């Protein structure tokens, strides 16, 4: 049973997730660029590399924008969350060993303790985000069930991953849940609001360009 499921999850399902992620991402980009070409070509004429970068740098550097300074806790949690979310899956030794096993490629891995902490940061941040959604009226007001589900979807692979790392009882089945939840997250990412991972670079660049090159003002 476990062999069959493991085979399914580590093989076809993993490929499916990766393909859906890549294809979904390309599809999102394609639809956006097609809309730009068809209806809003002018956007390209306002884009400025310099001010796109100015905007991105200010919003990707902690506390480099006014709103980050006004919400220091959110800023710290948010940066920690995003960094861990991206780093742990890619630089976890256990994952690298799997890629090495499959394709003979390997790269630098996070130290164990660091990886442990980082994978806990993600669900911890999700809890913070959920509490923030519940407690802050302006956030609760625009929060739907989907927003909580999304937090759960993000937290699940990390919680199960850490569970397996600790080798707590039920290791085998939990590992299967870990694999599956990670795949669901990956596959649905381009189709949920998590697509800001892809689109944010363009919305930020456009805002930065309009503010910098046209309006001569800061957008951060």
């Amino acid at each position, binding site marked *: 049973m476990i062999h069959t499921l493991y085979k399914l999850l580590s093989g076809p399902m993993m490929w499916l997730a990766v393909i859906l992620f890549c294809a979904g991402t390309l599809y999102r980009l394609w639809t956006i660029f097609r809309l730009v070409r068809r209806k809003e070509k002018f956007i390209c004429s306002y884009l400025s590399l310099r001010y796109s970068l100015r905007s991105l740098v200010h919003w990707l550097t902690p506390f480099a924008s006014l709103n980050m300074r006004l919400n220091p806790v959110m800023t710290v949690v948010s940066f920690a969350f995003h960094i861990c979310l991206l780093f742990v899956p890619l630089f976890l030794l256990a994952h690298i*060993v799997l890629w090495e096993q499959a394709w*003979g490629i390997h790269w630098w891995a996070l130290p164990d303790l660091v990886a442990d902490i980082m994978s806990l940061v993600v669900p911890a941040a999700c809890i913070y985000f959920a509490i923030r959604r519940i407690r802050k009226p302006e956030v609760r007001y625009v929060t739907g069930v989907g927003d909580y589900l999304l937090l759960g979807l993000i937290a699940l692979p990390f919680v199960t991953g850490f569970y*397996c790392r600790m080798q707590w009882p039920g*290791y085998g089945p939990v590992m299967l849940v870990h694999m599956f939840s990670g795949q669901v997250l990956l596959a649905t990412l381009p189709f949920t609001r998590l697509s800001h991972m892809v689109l944010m670079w363009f919305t930020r660049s456009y805002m930065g360009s309009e503010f910098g090159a046209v309006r001569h003002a800061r957008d951060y």
Partner: protein
Amino acid sequence: MEKRAIMLLIILMAVGWAAAPCLAQEKMHVVDNAIFPDTRCSPALFDHDGHNEKAGIDDCGVCHHVYQNGRKSEVETSEDSACVECHALKAGADNPIGLRRAFHLRCIGCHQIGEVGPLMCAECHPRASLH
């Protein structure tokens, strides 16, 4: 009588000394991982004889294989040499498969084909035996 006894003892000791590696092999419970510079998990659990008995492996060359010009030798086996002699830590031109990958492929690869035996990290590298 006494002389005979001494002779027997000497012979036994000689045999025992010669057979020592074999005896040790029989008591093998884990795959020695001392060769790895910065080991980050416990040595893989492996009961050599029990495993082979269960798996019905009689041919030592399945694991202790010898490859010549990219082909597995039908006759030669390599029980007397350490894995690392061919599978150096790092993969290179004359060593397509690094040691860690060789171990994992050898064990998990076979388990996947046979659909039996451990597949996931902790099934071979339990946390308790880390220290």
